[in-house]
């Protein structure tokens, strides 16, 4: 068994003539929280999309534990144990908070189409089971009281929580969070950090996250990789990243040539 939950090796991604990711390699140790940071357009979300199978890389491999999952179908990636949230929250707008989270439990409810139509006992058994689990999840995130509300009626911070809860419902080993703290106030950010710590322990997760809020990254991440124009410019502890001259140059612009 590998020490690493996720290995990305020599990843290159071209969009036409634009090289979005250039020969990127990094490893996410099991049980760690790993940060992927960098200025806008650095290719962070592209890396996410490759890991979840939404994009097929031009070159390079992605390994989950020791299995090659490069170019896997996005829904199969979920079966393998990768769950994600989106940069711009993408909840199911017409559905309640409860139903949104139940979507994550789709695979856990093992009844067939005919069992649903004829309302056979297995239907009730599994529906009861996943509802109970969904309520437990909502309890952890403190959104239980909103169960019957329409998902879009919630505040931004709570919608984020619903999205993470929905991802957790798929029973992942690796959770990909795309800017989880974006648009949140400091209080909500702290609250979210606490929840992420808790679920990481409770669900035995490894987490890969994209984030701009360096305070949040510093608090959450064990290791970070900094990307700029698709290239890795730094790998190591977050506290060192913010002192690295290359990283500062990438974020603030390179003053030596100005």
């Amino acid at each position: 068994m590998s020490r690493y939950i996720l290995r990305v090796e020599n990843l290159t991604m071209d969009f036409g003539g634009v090289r979005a990711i250039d020969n990127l390699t990094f490893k996410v140790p099991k049980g760690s929280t790993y940060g992927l940071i960098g200025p806008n357009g650095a290719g962070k979300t592209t890396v996410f999309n490759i890991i979840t199978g939404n994009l097929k890389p031009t070159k390079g491999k992605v390994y989950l534990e020791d299995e090659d999952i490069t170019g896997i179908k996005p829904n199969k990636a979920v079966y393998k144990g990768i769950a994600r949230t989106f940069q711009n929250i993408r909840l199911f707008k017409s559905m309640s908070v409860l139903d949104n989270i139940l979507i994550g439990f789709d695979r856990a409810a093992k009844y067939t189409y005919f069992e649903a139509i004829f309302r056979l006992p297995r239907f009730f058994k599994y529906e009861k089971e996943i509802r109970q689990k969904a309520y437990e999840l909502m309890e952890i995130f403190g959104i239980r009281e909103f169960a019957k509300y329409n998902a879009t009626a919630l505040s931004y911070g709570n919608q984020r929580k619903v999205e993470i809860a929905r991802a957790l419902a798929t029973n992942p080993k690796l959770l990909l969070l795309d800017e989880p703290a974006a648009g949140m106030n400091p209080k909500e950010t702290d609250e979210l950090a606490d929840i992420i710590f808790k679920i990481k322990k409770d669900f035995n997760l490894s987490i890969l996250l994209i984030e701009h809020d360096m305070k949040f990254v510093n608090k959450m991440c064990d290791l970070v990789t900094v990307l700029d124009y698709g290239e890795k410019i730094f790998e190591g502890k977050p506290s060192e990243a913010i002192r690295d001259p290359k990283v500062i140059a990438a974020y603030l612009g390179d003053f030596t040539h100005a």
Partner: protein
Amino acid sequence: MKKVIYLILTLAYLAFVYYAKDMFDAYTLSILSNIGIFAILALSYNLINGTTGQFSLEPNGFVAIGAYITALLLIPAETKLDMFALTDPAPIVLKMHADFLPALLIGGVAAAFVALLLSFPVFRVRGDYLAIVTLGFGFIIRILAINNPEYTNGAMGLNDIPSYADFTWIGTIALITFVTMLHIVYSKFGRGMKAIRDDEDAAIAMGLNTFKLKTFAFMTSAFFEGVGGGLLASFLTTITPDQFSFLLTFQLLIIIVLGGLGSMSGTLVATILVMGGMEWLRFLDEDMVIFGIHTGAHPGMRMVVFSILLILMMLFARRGLFGDKELPEIIEELKEKFKKSSK
């Protein structure tokens, strides 16, 4: 408590369906039957168009498949020999025969099978493209019906179809359709279909096999449209290819949009309004006396009024009568509002 109410409602409805024959005259019964058949078609159309949000325009094709197969299974061989005027019927057409219920089921299964085959090309495209591809399918079925007279008797259509489909049959099958649709909508499959409607990429990212879900919705929809087509054939006792033109799809589309895309109970109410409304407004075509002035007969006036009513309804209820909610949810919401306002 709720279960008891639903049980009582179901029993009351079944009693109504079984004793309707003795309570109403033939004209009323035919209107009721028409509403019942359109309810079956609209409910199943709503599953793919409303719940799953796949804007498709093919139900006339599936209804035609169900209608022709059921009709050919019901008509006795001698009658077929007399009826086929353009060419002799194909041997298989002469051989095929079944009782009413099996004939309906075979019609439905055939439509569902065609839907399965169709789902491979159509669900590769999304949105407007899906509408165009499925629209094409509806046209193809009609043209096939016209141009294969050894199977369908061409443009002359089939007549003398044994009339088994009375209101008892139609009403019972409409109930079965309604319950089946609700059972699908309130299960993980229905949730998945709604998720596809809201955001297909997010649904895939949650591990849903969206192609499978769309195909399930499409096949279920086709099955009941096929059964509805069989009922229509036996109810009208005569069918021609022109009955299954795009206008049929269009009529169903009006019903489900008026009822609210995704709402099964809304579709039922809309079916009664649209199909019943066409009949109840019939007096407008006739000569009327308003303040002592004879208006004269204006055939077609009811369609004018009907269209204006439809426009008004859509203006005041943009998302259809019930939105995407079911009746009990709406009652619940009204109760909440009433509580708040009375406080």
